[in-house]
């Protein structure tokens, strides 16, 4: 097929041509563009193939296999049978599973807010370059670095009645009896674990928020000060809006972490007294590795994955930036604060 007209004589070809330096007509441009685009697509595909293969091998396949196991009565050893959705229908009628889900929700509701507030407060304290801020950043972040399992064992010793530091200190200031048994009473155990986890996890939130705070241009605060803004107004009108994404990230990490809570409960209370402090991951563990109901436990795990996915999606939606929902074709200019090189941390 002959191309229409003299493609080389069309001035538009130069404007619309691809970056070949040659003057091409629109048809030629389209053909050449399609060829190059296809080649780029193939190159892109080749480059991402190893990553896709790894994700498929180590994420999608195990996930799919787990879904399959959840549709069977998979035991520890021996033959199994395909039972369809029976495990899932049993789950919704299992009072212990429902209790563990509700307990996990309660635990998440209790700790999420304080972790954010304490983390924010600590970030405010250490975001400047004042003397000692590096020390406090390290000190606040240290619990997260040491690790939850190690610290849970330490807490177990310090919560012992008559010999632990918790009872000693609290009895000295009149807040508890010297023989308070924290880990064998539902209310006391939940209180102790929540306080412990807030202490543990706030450091990570602090780091996430501090990084965001240090990225805010100092000129914005200077402008606010010129307008007569108070410290609270600067935090409320400047810092918080610009930290929206950091706060969203911190909240999502915190909520997912709370839904996956296991170590602290396993070490400190073993889910007791009875099963009153048994979070959903411990329920899964007990079903799988104590009761050896692997199919049923996997159904619980898949349900948890779905629930976490939904909650994370809802969080992403609620905490999204107001401009992040724009379509890709929307070319209207976006009004963003000017981000100039930061001349140093403010104040």
């Amino acid at each position, binding site marked *: 097929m002959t191309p229409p007209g003299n493609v080389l004589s069309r001035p538009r070809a130069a404007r619309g041509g691809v970056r070949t330096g040659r003057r091409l007509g629109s048809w030629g441009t389209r053909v050449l563009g399609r060829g190059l685009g296809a080649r780029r697509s193939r190159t892109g595909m080749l480059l991402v193939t190893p990553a896709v293969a790894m994700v498929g091998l180590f994420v999608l396949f195990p996930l799919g296999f787990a879904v399959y196991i959840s549709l069977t009565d998979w035991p520890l050893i*021996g033959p199994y049978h395909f039972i369809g959705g029976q495990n899932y229908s049993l789950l919704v009628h299992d009072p212990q599973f429902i209790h563990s889900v509700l307990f996990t929700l309660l635990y998440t509701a209790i700790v999420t807010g304080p972790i954010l507030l304490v983390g924010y407060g600590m970030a405010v304290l250490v975001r400047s370059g004042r003397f000692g801020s590096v020390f406090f950043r390290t000190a606040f972040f240290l619990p997260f670095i040491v690790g939850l399992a190690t610290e849970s064992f330490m807490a177990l010793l310090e919560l012992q009645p008559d010999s632990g530091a918790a009872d000693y200190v609290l009895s000295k200031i009149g807040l508890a009896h010297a023989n308070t048994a924290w880990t064998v009473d539902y209310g006391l155990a939940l209180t102790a674990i929540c306080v412990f986890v807030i202490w543990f996890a706030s450091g990570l939130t602090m780091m996430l928020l501090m990084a965001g705070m240090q990225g805010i241009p100092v000129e914005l605060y200077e402008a606010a000060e010129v307008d007569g803004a108070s410290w609270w107004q600067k935090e409320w009108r400047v810092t918080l809006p610009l930290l929206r994404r950091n706060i969203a990230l911190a909240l999502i990490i915190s909520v997912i972490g709370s839904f996956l809570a296991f170590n602290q409960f396993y070490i400190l209370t073993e889910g007791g*007294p009875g099963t009153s402090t048994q979070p959903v991951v411990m329920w899964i563990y007990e079903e799988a590795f104590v009761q050896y109901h692997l199919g049923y436990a996997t159904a619980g795990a898949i349900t948890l994955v779905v629930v976490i996915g939904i909650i994370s999606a809802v969080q992403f939606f609620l905490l999204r930036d107001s401009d992040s929902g724009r379509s890709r074709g929307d070319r209207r200019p976006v009004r963003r604060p000017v981000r100039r090189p930061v001349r140093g941390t403010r104040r």
Partner: protein
Amino acid sequence: MKLSARQTLTGAAAVMLLSAAACSSSGSTPSSAGSAGSSSFGVNATGTVQFWARTVSKTLAQKLVSEFNATHKNLQVKLTLTSINDDVTSLATSIRAGNPPDVVGLNDIDTPTFTRENAFMNLTPYIDKLPFKSDLSPGHMGLATYNGQEYGVPYWADLSVLWYNKTLFKEAGLNPDNPPTTYAQILSDAQAINKLGHGVSGFTFAGDCQGCLGFTVQPGIWADGSYLTSGGIGSQTASITNNQPLVQALTLYRQIWTQHLVPDNDRTDSGATWGEDFAAGKIGIMPGGYGQVVDLVKPSQLGTEFMDTQLPGSNGGYSTFDGGDDFVIPTAAKNASGAWEFIQWVLQTQQQVQYPALGATPIRTDVLTPTFSATNPEDAVALKALAKGYAPVTLVYDQMFNQASGPWFQMFSTAVYDGNMSLAVQQGQSGLTRLLQQAS
């Protein structure tokens, strides 16, 4: 459609083009002779034997393997230590993959879970040929027996005894050579020692450790001739209601608790610090394991400061929890002949008498000779109890006795800490019945 897990795993592996890796050798080298059923089975085997032992028997296993390898040039044992928390799932996974070890030191209470699935080799004809068969630990053998066939032999014993502090007995005016042999004596001796004051308590127990309590409280009930379950696997029932020995055992602990004869932090002891106060010389009497205290105190303190006696029943008699491990050979073991040769070697007297020094109790009652008693007086106490030892044969032991949410601990807590015996018995009967019905 009925599929085996192994078939599915193999198919999945093929889809992933990993079947070659999945089917790779475990490292066992098959014996050149001695297939199962032949007269040469377990005799002059060659190659390598893969031996999985729990970390709790690390010292014993390492010593045995080292000595065996030094004396058997043509048959070498390769030891792999498995975590006590996931040894069962590790073994099940290896069996599913068709690549199990040749011999396993398996927690004896977990053995029934595997034997009913024919996962282990039937060792009955070989055990029958052992001249000391009748001397093997009855509790271990009971757990390894299914439908009249024996699928394992004892490896080592972890037995519960009653430890006491001879120094505190003397200080309290008690005769250290006359330890308690009834519940009443336990209570009165604990009361006398508790009066010493200065941080000394008469008694101790791990009050939030379900397994520890099952290990130490049940033998008193067995000594009185009673058991918490009855019947064989598949038709077991709970025997809690009207179980007077059980009520007497719980009553003893209730009295000890309400009279403050134990440290306050016993209530929250999940086992992590169990026995440390006894080893520190602050406790008069402690039910516990033989190896547990041996690991906590200096050798010079054994017999001089600390001594043990059998766990008594309410009015005399004694028993012990027949814990520890069984030797089992998975059905798909590549060198079963070599594994059986190694097992036979371990069961010999020459190896058995080394157990006390390695923190374990032998599993042959005929090892208890005057010489053994003179050399190992504390382990001799445990070994004497072995003949009267017992361990519940059930598929749901962990669920019943080792869980914070299990019926055993719920019953113990209600009776001892809350003081409501009738409710405790109801909870125990209904909880055990529910689990036994699920398992049948």
